[in-house]
């Protein structure tokens, strides 16, 4: 049986991450790594709807925050294992995504984007007024000292996030290269023409929004355990939504690898800036890099590499 390079790389990365977390004591690496992985899931999820299907979601923070608050609610109720909270967040946010999918029947383009932004604000307001999960004062989570063989809890969270990221990217990769992915691309290019070519546009859009919502919920679910204190303003932070858009744009929206490249790159730069310059600078960096890419390389890094390769191929035979 032939194993795709994707899976070999994934398994190696996961093994390396686990080994790293089991042996290294310095917690900073895992805080930084977790943040970057969380951004990778968000960017990958955003791109399923934004890049593959062509609907821009400005409300990523809504799905992310709802995922986090699903965990808080369950934790407050009966403290189930973390994995149960992640699955629950996937279901809750997947359903919200499904609802968003029905919006696409009436709202397109800018109007859809505004509706998703409003959705995030509505959810934030709901959480502010829901005392059971702490309301505006927030909720504390007590995390265990350590789990399994990991010397630190954050090391465990990092490995968990690594597994979730690999799963999210695998889903996006499957969607990108399958019949479904070709249908989504047809919807992005022209919805009416796609429908007339036999593409069940509503079904595929609902699939796309549901998967996007579920993955964003998954990205948000472990947040309370990562920060140990959650309140609505930080859980529904607009920066989460901005990053989820900026990272695929920088990496390239046409393929599954683009958001991964963008998130790893921009996420790392942000972490670096946070430590070396100031914690506010990373916001400016996102803005500047995004404007730069949109004007100079609208197809992102992946598109840039592709066109360079094409040029090399065109010039290759002549040079030889």
């Amino acid at each position, binding site marked *: 049986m032939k194993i795709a390079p994707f899976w070999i790389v994934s398994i190696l990365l996961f093994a390396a991450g686990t080994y790293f977390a089991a042996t290294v004591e310095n917690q900073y690496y895992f805080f930084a790594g977790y943040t970057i992985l969380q951004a990778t899931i968000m960017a990958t999820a955003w791109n399923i709807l934004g890049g593959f299907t062509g609907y821009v979601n400005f409300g990523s923070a809504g799905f992310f925050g709802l995922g986090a608050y699903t965990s808080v609610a369950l934790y407050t109720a009966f403290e189930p294992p973390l994995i149960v909270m992640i699955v629950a967040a996937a279901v809750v946010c997947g359903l919200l995504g499904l609802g968003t999918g029905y919006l696409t029947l009436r709202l397109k383009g800018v109007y859809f984007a505004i509706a998703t932004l409003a959705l995030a604000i509505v959810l934030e307001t709901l959480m502010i007024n829901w005392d059971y999960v702490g309301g505006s004062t927030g909720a504390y989570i007590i995390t265990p000292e350590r789990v399994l063989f990991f010397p630190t809890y954050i090391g465990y969270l990092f490995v968990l996030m690594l597994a979730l990221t690999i799963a999210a990217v695998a889903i996006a990769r499957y969607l990108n290269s399958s019949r479904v992915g070709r249908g989504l691309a047809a919807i992005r290019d022209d919805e009416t023409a*796609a429908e*007339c*070519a*036999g593409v069940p546009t509503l079904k595929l859009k609902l699939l796309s929004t549901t998967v996007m919502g579920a993955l964003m919920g998954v990205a948000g679910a472990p947040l309370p355990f990562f920060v140990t204190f959650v309140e609505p303003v930080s859980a529904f932070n607009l920066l989460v939504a901005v990053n989820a858009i900026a990272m695929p744009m920088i990496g390239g929206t046409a393929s599954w690898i683009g958001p991964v490249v963008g998130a790893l790159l921009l996420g790392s730069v942000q972490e670096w800036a946070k430590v070396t310059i100031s914690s506010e600078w990373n916001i400016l960096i996102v803005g500047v890099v995004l404007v730069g890419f949109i004007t100079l390389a609208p197809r992102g890094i992946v598109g840039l590499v592709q066109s360079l390769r094409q040029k090399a191929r065109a010039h290759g035979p002549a040079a030889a």
Partner: protein
Amino acid sequence: MDQPLLEARNVVKRFGGFVALNDVSLRLMPGERLGLIGPNGSGKTTMINCVSGALFNDGGNILFKGEDITGMPAYRRARMGIARSFQIPKPFRSMTVLENLHIPLEFAAMHRTDYVQEEFEGIEILDAMGLKHKAHANSAMLNQVEMRKLELARALASKPDLLVSDEAMAGLSTSEVDEILDILFKLNERGVAIIMIEHVMRAVMRFSQHIVVLDAGQKIAEGNPDEILGNPLVEKAYLGE
């Protein structure tokens, strides 16, 4: 008597208070060539939007192969065998010409598994359209005639029994019009029934066996091309009194 391929019975379509189609009926036999003409804004495109499922009619019924398809979503009509081309070409811009054909081959013609077969059929259709040399070109880079041909090729790739050609010739030169006409005649020889919406009168009159004339959302005349040319109502609709 044979069952008609398509039958529209008393179709009504309103946009708010504006009646775009008022009680329009038409019949089409398998393999027939029908011309649908009328002045601008007479409801031709609305009519075929109701047939293809891009719009839903407010009154009346549409039957295809004897089945009532009123209210059926467009993608299922495409799978049943209704294909259309668009007045303003709508290629899938991120795809090559051949990839454009894969969408209907894969989704409407239901070749789920056999990619090799699809590749072959796609190329075959492009060959018939005279677009084979552009198979791997980016579809957004085509010129106008090529875009029109791609529209027809993509419609054909869904293996339809009925093709609706919405002004495939508007703005083309005489020789280009003849090229498109040849393609449509060739398709018709293979048994595909065709509804042609067109302002290029020379083309409609040469092509159609039967013509339906719409004016302000109503059917004002129908018959063979000679009857239509001699009909004073048609002349009045186009030229005024």
